């Protein structure tokens, strides 16, 4: 169930992520430093021609786990204001799949809390991605390094995803 039904904010979107909206959520006169992290779909030299990544999720758990993750960050940096959005669906190379904005009274907390959130996302948020490549092949990305491609795809290593590390 999407939180939109409850008229609450959802951590997920299927549209382009609005950085303005995220910044507006964390904006406060009491905060002198704001840190923004954008994770974008990468097509670098190691990516075998990634045209897009298809993101899917266990959506109900993503919402619940994001709420717990942000609560954990709030407990560690009580003065920080945190907003995060993860995009799902097919995201072309170069576009953002995740955006995190953290505002805090001072820059150190903003940087630390922002880093904490993205690292915890990588560990805890049940989202999966399938690389869509220019040669027409599709490969599930497995950050643990075990091969996951369902069709036989010549790929020496699947550990490098098509997004930021």
């Amino acid at each position, binding site marked *: 169930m999407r939180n939109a039904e409850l008229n609450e904010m959802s951590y997920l979107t299927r549209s382009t992520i609005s950085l303005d909206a995220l910044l507006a959520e964390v904006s406060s006169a009491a905060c002198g430093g704001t840190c923004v992290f954008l*994770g974008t779909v990468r097509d670098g030299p190691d990516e075998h021609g990634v045209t897009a990544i298809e993101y*899917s*999720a*266990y959506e*109900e*758990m993503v919402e*619940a*786990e994001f709420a717990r993750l942000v609560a954990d960050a709030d407990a560690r940096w009580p003065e920080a204001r945190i907003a995060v959005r*993860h995009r799902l669906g097919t995201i072309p190379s170069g576009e953002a*799949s*995740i955006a995190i904005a953290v505002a805090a009274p001072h820059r150190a907390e903003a940087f630390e809390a922002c880093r904490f959130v*993205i690292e915890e*996302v*990588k*560990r*805890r*948020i*049940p*989202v*999966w*991605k*399938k690389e869509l490549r220019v040669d027409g092949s599709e490969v*599930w*990305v*497995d*950050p*643990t390094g*075990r091969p*996951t491609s*369902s069709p036989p795809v010549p790929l020496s290593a699947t550990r490098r*995803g098509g*997004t*930021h590390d």
Partner: protein
Amino acid sequence: MTVTGTGTATIRVRLFARYAELVGRTEAAVSVALPATVGDVVRRLRDEVPQARALPERPLAAVNLRQVKLDARVQDGDEVALLPPIAGG
């Protein structure tokens, strides 16, 4: 601490991403005799659904939207999700 019941529990199992593709479905209902663990649910799924043999024996799992270890107990009506390696962000 909830007292673990006896009898039979019906568990809704959900599959995602590559696991859903391997098994050819996104969910299944399995019955297990209580007391039972998430690991028992995985074993039952692998026994009852032929394509589920393709799943790892010890996948990452969640019960009712929380990650758990495979020795976590399940109750009637629980939702068990089998999660491929998380690749978010």
